[in-house]
């Protein structure tokens, strides 16, 4: 498919993993105590792939060019708002909604990128941060007619919805693929449940739509990585001076990368709104921008598979850690003497439940300090250790992983 066996194999592996996710993520029986580690719920699986798209797009900018944007959540938010407006005005079909989300966020990225890319390094980071905060503040205040301010943009029974308002009953409609009649509507929330003994597998329409789009997004990103365009972007990261003296105008290259990654973010935002038709300004906050940075770094910035791994692991651990409360911890540590158990539970509880962000922050620091290449680099190192190979591995991603630069 790419004329490169490794890339084709990688794409196939990702495709199989993603399509079989309802099985893979549900390894434990539902009546066992391990059920809490299952992740095969429609809602969670949707987040895996949607944030995967977000991180893949961010990686095209940051991983290739090294331009660290701290404002990408703005495009995610814009995508969500556009999609919800499509649901309010046109129809509940997700296709026009997603298209509009990608288009509008692309235009938005073009505007912000055009200005921000006049500077590089920290100045670029701060400019993007400023733009994102500005969008966030505006969404909360002046743009309330468009964004519905603090409440967030939601569907309402009074929405015009010119194409399919006729069938409206007393309740809010839900999103479907193409038409309410095609294939029984094929609503995003439709879930087919398959129970085999103690195992419950759920196949959700919304998940599969998002998964297919993620595979598509991944495919496009592999093409970009392997193309002359991608090569130029990597050259931007290493030595802009040389590139300029080689006859290349770097600004349009970085701008194109910025717009592409903004459109990926818009796609992710549009999908989020398609799964659950509401959009709020908090999606644009700079902590949300920080989250996608963390995903890319954790997985391995500049690698193909890294962002997907990063997005998946962060969303998974967020889900698991947030669920662990003190009662569960008391069960776990019941084998310890009482006083000790209480002490251990007290400490561990600070890292779970609401304390998930503390764990995330620590994890992030550890990765930046010890494993700048992220999980992909970690995996490669372990693989090399296990197979006792010291020569560079043949892994597809290896050549694109940033080299580990030991601190001083």
């Amino acid at each position, binding site marked *: 498919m*790419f*004329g*490169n066996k490794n890339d084709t194999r990688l794409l196939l592996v990702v495709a199989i993993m993603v399509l079989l996710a309802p099985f893979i993520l549900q390894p434990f029986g539902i009546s066992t105590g391990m059920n809490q580690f299952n992740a095969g719920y429609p809602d969670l699986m949707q987040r895996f792939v949607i944030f995967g798209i977000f991180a893949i797009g961010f990686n095209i900018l940051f991983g290739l060019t090294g331009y660290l944007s701290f404002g990408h959540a703005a495009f995610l938010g814009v995508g969500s708002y556009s999609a919800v407006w499509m649901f309010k005005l046109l129809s509940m079909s997700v296709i026009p909604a997603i298209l509009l989300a990608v288009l509008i966020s692309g235009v938005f990225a073009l505007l912000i990128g055009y200005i921000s890319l006049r500077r590089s390094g920290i100045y670029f980071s701060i400019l993007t941060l400023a733009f994102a905060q500005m969008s966030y503040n505006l969404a909360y205040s002046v743009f309330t007619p468009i964004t519905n301010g603090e409440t967030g943009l939601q569907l309402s029974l009074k929405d015009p919805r010119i194409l399919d308002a006729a069938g409206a009953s007393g309740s809010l409609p839900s999103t479907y693929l193409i038409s309410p009649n095609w294939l029984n509507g094929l609503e995003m929330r439709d879930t087919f449940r398959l129970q085999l003994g103690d195992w419950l597998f759920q196949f959700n329409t919304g998940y599969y739509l998002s998964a297919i789009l993620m595979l598509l997004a991944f495919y496009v990103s592999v*093409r*970009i990585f*392997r*193309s*002359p*365009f*991608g*090569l*130029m972007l*990597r*050259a931007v*990261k*290493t*030595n802009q*001076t*040389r*590139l*300029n*003296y*080689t*006859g*290349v*105008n*770097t600004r*349009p*290259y970085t701008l*194109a990368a910025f717009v592409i990654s903004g459109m990926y973010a818009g796609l992710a935002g549009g999908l989020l709104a398609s799964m659950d038709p509401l959009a709020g300004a908090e999606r644009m906050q700079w902590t949300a921008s920080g989250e996608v940075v963390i995903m890319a770094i954790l997985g391995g910035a500049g690698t193909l598979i890294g962002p997907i791994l990063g997005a998946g692991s962060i969303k998974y651990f967020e889900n698991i850690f947030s669920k662990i409360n003190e009662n569960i911890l008391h069960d776990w540590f019941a084998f310890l003497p009482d006083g000790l158990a209480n002490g251990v539970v007290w400490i561990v509880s600070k890292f779970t439940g609401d304390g998930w962000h503390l764990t995330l922050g620590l994890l992030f620091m550890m990765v930046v300090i010890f494993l700048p290449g992220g999980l992909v680099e970690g995996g490669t190192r372990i693989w090399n250790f296990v197979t006792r190979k010291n020569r560079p591995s043949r892994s597809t991603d290896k*050549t694109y992983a*940033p*080299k580990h630069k030991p601190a001083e």
Partner: protein
Amino acid sequence: MAILEVRNVSKRFGGLQALDDVNLSVEENTIHAIIGPNGAGKSTLLNCFVGKLLPDEGSVLFDGRSLLGAKPHEINQMGVSRVFQTPEIFGDLTVFENVIIPCFAKRDGAFSLNAWKGVRHEVDMREKAEQMLIDVSMQDKKDMTASSLSRGDKRRLEMAMCLSQDPQLLLLDEPTAGMSRSDTNNTIDLLKEIQAKRAITMAVIEHDMHVVFSLAEKISVLAQGTVIVEDLPENIKGNLKVQEAYLGTTAA
């Protein structure tokens, strides 16, 4: 015919007259050396050729077109390549990628959204890059990361990058600075070979007299911001003005 014409160029930094009415012309298909003691304005002059500095007065014409006010990438697209004093290469990329990038830049121009067809399918460009690496005998290092090369190899790589664009004019800023004697000689041979094979015009800024006299067909001597002599190498050697500029006293 002169390919590079520098006419009455002056540049002032605050109170310092870095270039004072410089006139220079580089003939096509020759190696032209620009020499001079430290602070003579050699680097300033070079920066005026490549769009990094804008002279206060005068004109710089390349092949009849003005270079003044053009951006570095535009000047390169006109056919001027530059080798830096400390090699500027793409350190994180492989040697092969380093060489194929200029090939793409030459073919696709300053920008092209060539994002679908893989680099591995660009057969023409690959062949060109491979051939270039063979020409500078670096084909065995093509998969190495450029930053891990030795200093001499880095410079050789930079030269290969510039040459792969078939420039009409190659500007070299002290191409042998910091090199061992044997590396220096290799570089001299390489440059001569290239010049013979490809008919390229080169303007070399150089400190090392050995290099200058083994390479140059014509020499301009720059002192205190102005060209004091422009002549053939054999005439430069005995020139009193040059000795004065270098030694600070009259040789007599």
